[in-house]
C-alpha cells in the first residue's frame, strides 16, 4: 500500500469572496457614484422618493441584523427612531448645535440609552422580548410627550435657521443652480445616501468578521453556537446597542428632513417597525440582499397603492403572511436558491479541491 494514500487527498480552503462578487463590488461602486451624481439630472420628486427609500432600507438592514442574525425580534425599534429624532431637536433647538455635529451625537446617545434598556428587555426571551421592546418604545413615547420644552404631546418644529444651517446647502444652490428648498432636499439626499452606504458597509463588514461568523451561527442554531463557545449574551448585547446607535442616527436624519416632530409620529410602530419588518420579510430575512429587494418592492407598492389607505395596509399584511407561510426565506431566498446568487458575499464557502488536480 502506498503511504501517501493514507494522508488527506483533498485540500480545503474557506472563501468569502469569489470572482463574481468582485464584479459586484465594482458594480456597487458605479451605482454609488451614479447615485451621488443623480441630483444633477433628477427632479425633486424622485429625490424625495429616494430619500424615503434610503431611510427605509437603512432601517431594514438594522432590523435584519437584529432579528435575522442575532435572533432579537424587536417590534420596538421605533423607540430609537423617535429617540434619535427628539435628541436631534434637543441638541439643535435647545443646545444650539449644528445639525451635522448633532447627528453623530444622537448615535452615541442612542447607544447609551440602549444599554440600560437592553438590561431590562433581555430578561424576556423570544416572543416575549418582542412585546417587551414595544412596551419600552411606548415608555419613550409617553416620556417625550411629557417633555414640554419640545412641545409635549403636540410636538414642535425646527426653526428655519437650524434647517438652513446644514453644511452644503449654499454650495448645492450655486453649483446646481436650484432654490433653497430643492437644495435642502439634495443635501438631505446625500446625507441619506451616505448613511445608507455607511449602514450597508457596517453590516457587511460585521457579518464578514469573526463576530459575523458567530452571528451566523446564532441565526442557524443558537444552542449549537453556544455549545461551540459563542458568548451569546455579549454578542446579542453588542448587536442591540450597535443597531440602536445606527437606528438613532437614521431617526435624527429623518426628522432633520421632516423638520417637524411629534411623539405619536416619531414613535409610530407602523411607520418605523411594521413597514420595516414587512420589507425584511418580503425580501428575505437573514440575508443582506433581502432587505434591498424588499425595500424596492415596498417603495413601488407605496407609490402605487398608498392612496388606498386602509386597503393598502390590508394588502401589505396579507402579503407578509403569505410570504411567511409559503416562502419563509423571502423573494431573495427563492431567487438565490435557484441560481446560487450572492450580491453581498458574507457567507463562507468551503472550496474543496482534489490534490491530483494541480
Amino acid at each position: 500500500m502506498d503511504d501517501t494514500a493514507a494522508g488527506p487527498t483533498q485540500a480545503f480552503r474557506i472563501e468569502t469572496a469569489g470572482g463574481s462578487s468582485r464584479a459586484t463590488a465594482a458594480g456597487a461602486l458605479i451605482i454609488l457614484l451614479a447615485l451621488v451624481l443623480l441630483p444633477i439630472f433628477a427632479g425633486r420628486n424622485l429625490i424625495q422618493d429616494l430619500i424615503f427609500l434610503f431611510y427605509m432600507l437603512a432601517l431594514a438592514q438594522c432590523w435584519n441584523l437584529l432579528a435575522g442574525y442575532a435572533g432579537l425580534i424587536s417590534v420596538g425599534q421605533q423607540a430609537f427612531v423617535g429617540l434619535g429624532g427628539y435628541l436631534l431637536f434637543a441638541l439643535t433647538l435647545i443646545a444650539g448645535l449644528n445639525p451635522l455635529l448633532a447627528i453623530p451625537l444622537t448615535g452615541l446617545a442612542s447607544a447609551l440609552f440602549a444599554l440600560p434598556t437592553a438590561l431590562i428587555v433581555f430578561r424576556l426571551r423570544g416572543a416575549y422580548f418582542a412585546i417587551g421592546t414595544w412596551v419600552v418604545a411606548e415608555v419613550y413615547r409617553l416620556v417625550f410627550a411629557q417633555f414640554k420644552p419640545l412641545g409635549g404631546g403636540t410636538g414642535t418644529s425646527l426653526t428655519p435657521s437650524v434647517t438652513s444651517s446644514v453644511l452644503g446647502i449654499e454650495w448645492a444652490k450655486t453649483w446646481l443652480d436650484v432654490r433653497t428648498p430643492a437644495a435642502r432636499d439634495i443635501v438631505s439626499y446625500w446625507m441619506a445616501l451616505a448613511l445608507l452606504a455607511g449602514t450597508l458597509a457596517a453590516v457587511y463588514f460585521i457579518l464578514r468578521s469573526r463576530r459575523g461568523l458567530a452571528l451566523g451561527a446564532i441565526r442557524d442554531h443558537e444552542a449549537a453556537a453556544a455549545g461551540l463557545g459563542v458568548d451569546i449574551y455579549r454578542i446579542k448585547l453588542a448587536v442591540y446597542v450597535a443597531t440602536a446607535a445606527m437606528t438613532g442616527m437614521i431617526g435624527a436624519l429623518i426628522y432633520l428632513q421632516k423638520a417637524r416632530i411629534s411623539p405619536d409620529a416619531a414613535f409610530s410602530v407602523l411607520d418605523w417597525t411594521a413597514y420595516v419588518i414587512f420589507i425584511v420579510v418580503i425580501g428575505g430575512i437573514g440575508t443582506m440582499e433581502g432587505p434591498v429587494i424588499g425595500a424596492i418592492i415596498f417603495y413601488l407598492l407605496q407609490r402605487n397603492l398608498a392612496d388606498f389607505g386602509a386597503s393598502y395596509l390590508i394588502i401589505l399584511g396579507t402579503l407578509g403572511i403569505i410570504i411567511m407561510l409559503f416562502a419563509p426565506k423571502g423573494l431573495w431566498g427563492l431567487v438565490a436558491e435557484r441560481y446560487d446568487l450572492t450580491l453581498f458575499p458574507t457567507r463562507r464557502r468551503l472550496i474543496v479541491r482534489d490534490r491530483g488536480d494541480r
Partner: protein
Amino acid sequence: MIGWLDALIQGVLLGGLYALFAAGLSLMFGVMRLVNLAHGDLIVLAAYAILVVASKLGLDPFVAMLAAIPILFVMGFALQHVLLNRTLGRDLLPPLLVTFGLSIIIQNGLLQTFSADSQRLRSGAIETASIPLGGGIAVGVVPLLTLVSAIAVIVFLNFIFYRTPLGRAFRATSDDLEVAQLMGVDVNRIFAVAMGLAFVVIAIAALYLGLRANFDPTIGPARLLYAFEAVIIGGLGSFRGTLAGGIVLGLAQTIGARIDPEWQILAGHLAFLVVLAVRPRGLFPRAQD
C-alpha cells in the same frame, strides 16, 4: 385619604378588566406557547361583533355577547386550524410575524367597515349604576361585574386545565408536544379548541371593554400591551398569577393617574419594568421559557 382609598378600590376593579384581557393570552401561551400580537385587535374585533349583534337584533350587549360566543368560538377554532397551526414550530419568527400581519389586517379592516368613530356598547341603567360603600366611595356595577367575571373566568380556566380530560390534553401538549402526539392526542385539534376557548374569553373581555369605555379600531395594540404586562407581572403559565398581574397593573395605573392624570399609562408600564427588573419571572411563576 379617602381619595387614595378610592384609587386603590378603582385600581383593583380596573385590574379585573386587565386580567380578562390577559386570560386569553395566558391560555394561548399555556397551551401552544403562542404569543399572539393580534390579541388586542381580536378583543376590539369581538367588541365590534357584539356591537353588530346587539344593534342588528336589538339585544342587550350581555345577551348579544352570549349570542356572539359560538360565532367567536368557531372563528378562533378556524383561525388556529387554518392559519396559526402552520406557523408553530422551533422558529419563533413565523407566529410573531403572522399575528403581527393579522393585527394590521384587523385594524384596517375595522377602520374600513366601521370608520374611525368611537363606539360604545349600550346597556341602559346598569352602565351608570353604582353601589355606595359609605364615606363618599362608590363602586360602579359594571366595574364590579368585570372583576367578578375575571375571577370566574380564571376559576373556570383552572377547572378546565386541572380537572377535565381536555385540560389533561392541554397540559400534555404544553409539556411535551411529541410525546403527547405519540399518546394519541390530535394536537392540531387541541390547539384549535384552545384558541376557540381563548376567543370565548376574548368575547367576555370585549363586552366589558365596550361597556366601560369608548372603543375604536386603533386601540387594540395598547390592550395587547396591558394583557402582556399582566401575564408577565403575574408569572408565565399561572392563571391566578395573571389575575394578580392584572390587579397590580390596574393599581399602578390608578395610583399614577391619582398623582397626575397624564401619568396613568406610563405608571403601568413602569410598574411592569420594575417587576421585570426585580422579579424577572413574575410574582407567581410556573412555566419556564
